[in-house]
């Protein structure tokens, strides 16, 4: 276990280092110099150069890379070119929207997917299974932003139960904030729930064919007892992987939904920063997201290795 642990840590660090180099290099290619972009067309060369020096853009590439990575290791993500505020603060502020939204959407997805997947698997081939699989097939095919548009049209414009967009901030109260995140969370949850329900169902069906489930049935357990007592736990492995991936996806992938609802989330921060050539923000936020994805995968892997000794050897 210890060897496995260190091996995984090693590959995790290697991934992060390579990812940081890739991000830095791609951002370097971006056309448009941030300093001239900020100062506009009429700025003199002197002014541009002065600003470049102030932003640290006059240094060599290697120096700037080292500065960037060194700063991040100390929690300093640089200073936004556009807003002149620390990137770390901007990210922290956006996370107060993105994290709850991702959590909200994922909870909804799990709440919908588990009963649906379990029910479909336990009644495999029956009418309920067919209906649930049909609905999830549709759920996977519906673009979440299109679904979001109808949610807005019905619940915000027609019935006016929710606001059509924007976020009042958590200062306005917990429930007010949650209410503002409800429509976006529902829109995000629909495809995720469909995927999760399908994975859970097929994983359960695989496990139900295993010998130990037959043994459990043979010793007198009902189908339902075998499902809950033996099959579900073993069917959870692929399901947990998907949940881990979905969480990291929701953190950044909400970008389009954030645009539909005008939510000040992390995805929208990246989107706006790219448009404003605020490259240090783009760089740092993408690095942070890669870090989140890699960490979630690492933790999920570790959880498997801990639960299932066979996993430690397969790597």
């Amino acid at each position, binding site marked *: 276990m210890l060897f496995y642990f260190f091996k995984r840590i090693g590959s995790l660090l290697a991934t992060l280092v390579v990812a940081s180099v890739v991000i830095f290099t791609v951002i370097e290619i971006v*056309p448009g110099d941030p300093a001239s972009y900020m100062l506009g067309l009429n700025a003199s060369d002197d002014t541009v150069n002065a600003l470049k020096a102030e932003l640290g853009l006059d240094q060599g590439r290697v120096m700037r890379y080292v500065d960037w990575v060194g700063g991040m290791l100390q929690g300093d993500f640089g200073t936004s070119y556009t807003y002149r505020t620390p990137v770390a603060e901007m990210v922290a502020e956006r996370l107060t929207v993105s994290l709850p939204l991702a959590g909200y959407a994922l909870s909804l997805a799990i709440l919908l997917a588990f009963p649906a997947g379990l029910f479909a698997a336990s009644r495999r081939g029956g009418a309920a299974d067919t209906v649930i699989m049909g609905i999830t097939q*549709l759920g996977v095919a519906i673009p979440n*932003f299109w679904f979001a*548009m*109808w949610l807005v049209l019905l619940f915000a414009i027609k019935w006016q139960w929710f606001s059509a967009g924007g976020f009042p901030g958590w200062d306005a109260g917990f429930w007010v904030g949650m209410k503002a995140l409800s429509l976006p969370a529902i829109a995000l949850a629909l495809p995720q729930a469909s995927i999760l329900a399908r994975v859970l169902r097929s994983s359960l069906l695989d496990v139900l064919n295993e010998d130990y489930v037959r043994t459990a049935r043979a010793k007198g357990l009902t189908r339902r007892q075998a499902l809950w007592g033996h099959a579900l736990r073993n069917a959870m492995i692929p399901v947990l992987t998907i949940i881990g991936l979905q969480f990291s996806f929701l*953190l950044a*992938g909400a*970008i389009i939904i954030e645009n539909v609802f005008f939510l000040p989330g992390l995805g929208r921060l990246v989107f706006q920063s790219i448009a404003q050539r605020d490259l240090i923000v783009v760089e740092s936020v993408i690095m942070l*997201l890669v870090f989140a994805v890699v960490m979630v995968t690492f933790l999920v892997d570790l959880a498997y290795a801990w639960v299932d000794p066979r996993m430690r050897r397969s790597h």
Partner: protein
Amino acid sequence: MAATTKSRFRNLVPGAVLVCIFFGAAVLSFFYTPFDVEKFNIAQRMLRPDAVHWLGTDHFGRDILSMLMVGARTSLAVAFVAVSIGIVVGVPLGLMAASYRGRWLDELIMRGNDLVFAFPALVIAIMITAVFGPSAVNAIIAIGIFNIPVFARLTRGAALGIWNREFILAARVAGKNSVRISVEHILPNILNLLIVQGTIQFSLGILAEAGLSYVGLGAQPPTPSWGRMLADSQTLTNLAPHLALFPGMVIVLSVLGLNLLGDGLRDWLDPRLRRE
């Protein structure tokens, strides 16, 4: 047996029919559309569906059915090329990794895969289109990059299983090198899997293209695209819901069609996966 045959084509037929309709519409749009999609006709704007404009007109008076047909071209082409990039690059990588299994090249390819997977796909797609400018070509590249590890990983996993089989040993005894074995024996045996995955990635590509053009980073005006039609309709949903209804429906139906086709092909091509 009758039940098996029935369930065998339950997904395949509707899937194939839907996919044929969309491909047919895209091809037809090169020769014929009911109206010219680049001509504005403000007097005829936002008409409800009627006998002349079957699906109504948009806020510039353009015929929605015609726009959807031309939009199908963009969507299908972007998704198709993106999947092809994934296959052309990913499959050889996967075959290589499998034939060098356990050695450094395998390790390098697989870690490279993990690296691409670690990037949030949509954010990178947005970054690529922002760096090189929004266009259909850049959308293809952005979506294509994320198809590479999908195919590399699938190919490697499936190929590893085939490498352990006896007929591979026979081929090696016959003196074939690993490249020939990969191409002549491994590839034909995993082709089914690749076709099935290809249709699934195709449908994901359509969704991704729609999302990118929705935020303005896909095909640029005046080229009609399903995603941008939705973006244009957004402020008008209250006045003319049909503007948002039809483009969304064609996205759903084409993605659904491809997914059904993928499921159907899997059941049809690989009887072992079919459960009684």
